[in-house]
């Protein structure tokens, strides 16, 4: 424990000395995030310096082994570092699907060569990754992967289409589920493959949502040649890797506090509720639900930390949190009235309210629909018989 305190003091001092003042201001919008990549777009010198300094210490991925570009910290030290970063108001130096999704999969399933090759680049923010799971006809049934991947002796040949690929148009590499055995049962013929988005035959097309522009793309593979050593884990056992990552993703989403911060919505809308008694009642009920949900989030985090959360608990968090978030934005729209319907005006900041409202409708679809989550709870917690 004494060592931990020493570490805390040193981390605090280092952050004090190395985190630029600009990087201690709260993030204002999406564009303030640093995503790295081959041709990184830095918004400021401070942003660049901050990422590079953190990467140099391995602190973009503090708990990864040093040999792969990580900080080599213990879980306890990692926690202390995060606490100190939070205390200093330091921004996340690097947003990255490589860090949050691919990294853990490589650490668990990658060959030594793959780890050495890919992890350090991720840690340094040199390669930006995207995720190719969903397909146009798959929806909730993620394992119904149709993208073909044929063994052509000295390479794989990939043909097919992915959808909902976040930032595919900005990513350098993709990790993706492909079908390597069309004859095998659904879950048994899938592999987890990596390739460069510059490979001939790869193209992307952004998806326009009802809320407006989005980071999502359709991604097309037309005779894409992939080197043989770029499959992670065993061929035809990619579903294991995918499941492992999905678990990670669900925890992440359920930890995102989609249900809100626990601040009272009614307090924020008070002025507008004065002459709207029915809406006031709805908001009061919502506040009860949101504050109660917040307690469950806290409990979930505490239980996670203590390693005693039920493995299906993230499903409840995701279900309840996303439904609550949708309800929140319905109420915000109702309180905003016709003013909140403006779609383009400056007054409405380009339709911030209605676009956010519409965007929340995807919360209960992406990352496993509400129906999927309820099914998981029914099966794995309530142990109701399968159909």
């Amino acid at each position, binding site marked *: 424990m004494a060592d931990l305190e020493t570490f805390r003091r040193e981390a605090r001092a280092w952050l004090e000395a190395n985190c630029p003042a600009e990087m201690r201001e709260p993030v204002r919008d999406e564009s303030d995030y640093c995503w790295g990549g081959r041709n990184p777009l830095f918004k400021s010198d401070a942003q660049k310096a901050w990422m590079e300094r953190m990467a140099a210490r391995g602190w973009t991925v503090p708990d990864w082994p040093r040999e792969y570009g990580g900080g080599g910290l213990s879980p306890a030290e990692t926690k202390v570092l995060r606490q100190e970063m939070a205390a200093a108001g330091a921004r996340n130096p690097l947003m990255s699907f490589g860090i949050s999704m691919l990294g853990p999969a490589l650490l668990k399933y990658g060959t030594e060569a793959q780890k050495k090759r890919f992890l350090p680049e991720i840690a340094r923010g040199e390669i930006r990754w995207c995720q190719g799971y*969903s397909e146009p*006809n798959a*929806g*909730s*049934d993620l394992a*119904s992967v149709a993208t073909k991947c044929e063994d052509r002796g000295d390479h794989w040949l990939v043909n097919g289409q992915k*959808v*909902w690929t976040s930032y595919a148009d900005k990513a350098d590499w993709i990790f993706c589920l492909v079908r390597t055995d069309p004859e095998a049962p659904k879950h048994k013929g899938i592999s987890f493959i990596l390739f460069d988005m510059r490979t001939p035959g790869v193209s992307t097309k952004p*998806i*326009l*949502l*009802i*809320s407006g522009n989005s980071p999502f793309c359709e991604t097309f593979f037309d005779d894409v040649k992939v080197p043989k050593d770029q499959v992670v884990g065993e061929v035809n056992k990619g579903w294991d890797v995918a499941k492992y990552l999905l678990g990670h993703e669900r925890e992440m989403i359920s930890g995102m506090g989609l249900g809100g911060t626990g601040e009272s919505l009614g307090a924020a809308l008070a002025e*507008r509720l004065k*002459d*709207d*008694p*029915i*809406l006031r009642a*709805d908001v009061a009920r919502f506040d009860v639900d949101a504050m109660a949900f917040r307690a469950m989030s806290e409990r979930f985090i505490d239980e996670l930390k203590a390693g005693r959360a039920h493995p299906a608990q993230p499903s409840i968090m995701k279900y309840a949190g996303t439904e609550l978030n*949708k309800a929140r934005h319905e109420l915000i*729209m*109702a309180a*905003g*009235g*016709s*003013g*909140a*319907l*403006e*779609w*383009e*005006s400056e007054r409405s900041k380009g*339709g911030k309210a*209605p676009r956010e*409202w*519409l965007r929340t*409708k*995807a919360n*209960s*679809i*992406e990352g496993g*629909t*509400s*129906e999927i989550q*309820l099914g998981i709870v029914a099966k794995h917690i309530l142990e109701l018989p399968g159909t």
Partner: protein
Amino acid sequence: MPLYLTDDQAMLRDTAREFMAAEGSIAKQYRKYRDMNCKDGFGHALWKQFGEMGFTGILIDEADGGLGLGHVEAGIVLEEIGRNLTPSPFLVTAVAVVEALRGTRHGERWYPGILAGETVAALAVDEGSKHRPEAIAMTAERSGNGFRLSGRKQFVVQGASADVFVVAADTTDGLTLFSVEKGTKGLEIEGVRLADASIGARLEFDRVEVDADAVIGEVGRGRDVLRRVLNAGRAGAASELVGVGSQAMAMTVDYLKQRKQFGRLIGEFQALQHRAAHLYSELEIARAATLKAQQLLSEDAEEADMMVSVAKAKSGQASALAVQEGVQMHGGIGMTDEYDIGLYMKRDRVLNELFGDASYHADKVARLNGY
């Protein structure tokens, strides 16, 4: 009167359904005018066709060249408009404003253009972001032979292309409705694109001078006229909501019959079946309530106010449920602009706000019942 459509009404419905599906379709109207970023938000050619079809004259007396029909018939057309998200001035011009001008010289002045599908007329009531017609702050002071209007209005649907506005203002002795033409000095109009690509407007009246002739009905007695106008508009909006909700449901039920997941049609999943059946029930209830309200309105019955509020609240809830279930059951593609279901969600939201939302009308029902 039995609470279903008469043969004549059913015929009108068939006509309107066929016409709107052919001429008022999402591809031909909604998307076209949205994607060209049209400042009016609707097609004037279609508005003329509405005139040719006789739709614009449904609520105009036969003596004035109209069809002399009632609110049920207006609702029939609006339900089809709702199904196709057809952008047009029908609700505000041919329903609300026509009701406002009934039996006045202003009617003589504007009805011909409305009948022809040439004139666009808008209603300027709301002043804040919520519908609160009980508290009109815009003032109309006597000035010379006429009045001087000062104040603001917002959510003036089709206000960007209107030739004339029906404006509610406070004349100290009560509420008065005025007819104010586009281009009147001191009247500034800002067209505002809304979430559903329709155009609302914000109006600023900076000491706008109008003649005594501009008064619709009697000075200080506008409250009664406004009541009729809002009842007409609310019942009409309820019909449009029923149309929006019904089509959203129909598209969703179709999707449930086509889409496969986990090797089964998703329409086989019992949880979705029950939710769809519940939704159907809600929409049927909303449709019946709306028809009832329109019959009462046409009979000028005392209970009409109450039933109109019931209809607007219930159809708003049912339609909101329809679009929410619609997007959720469509899954990811329901979120894309490429599919139509999301457009229904946007339109539903705007119609729910128009003429008072479900909360406003539930509160009104409570107050009318003395609690």
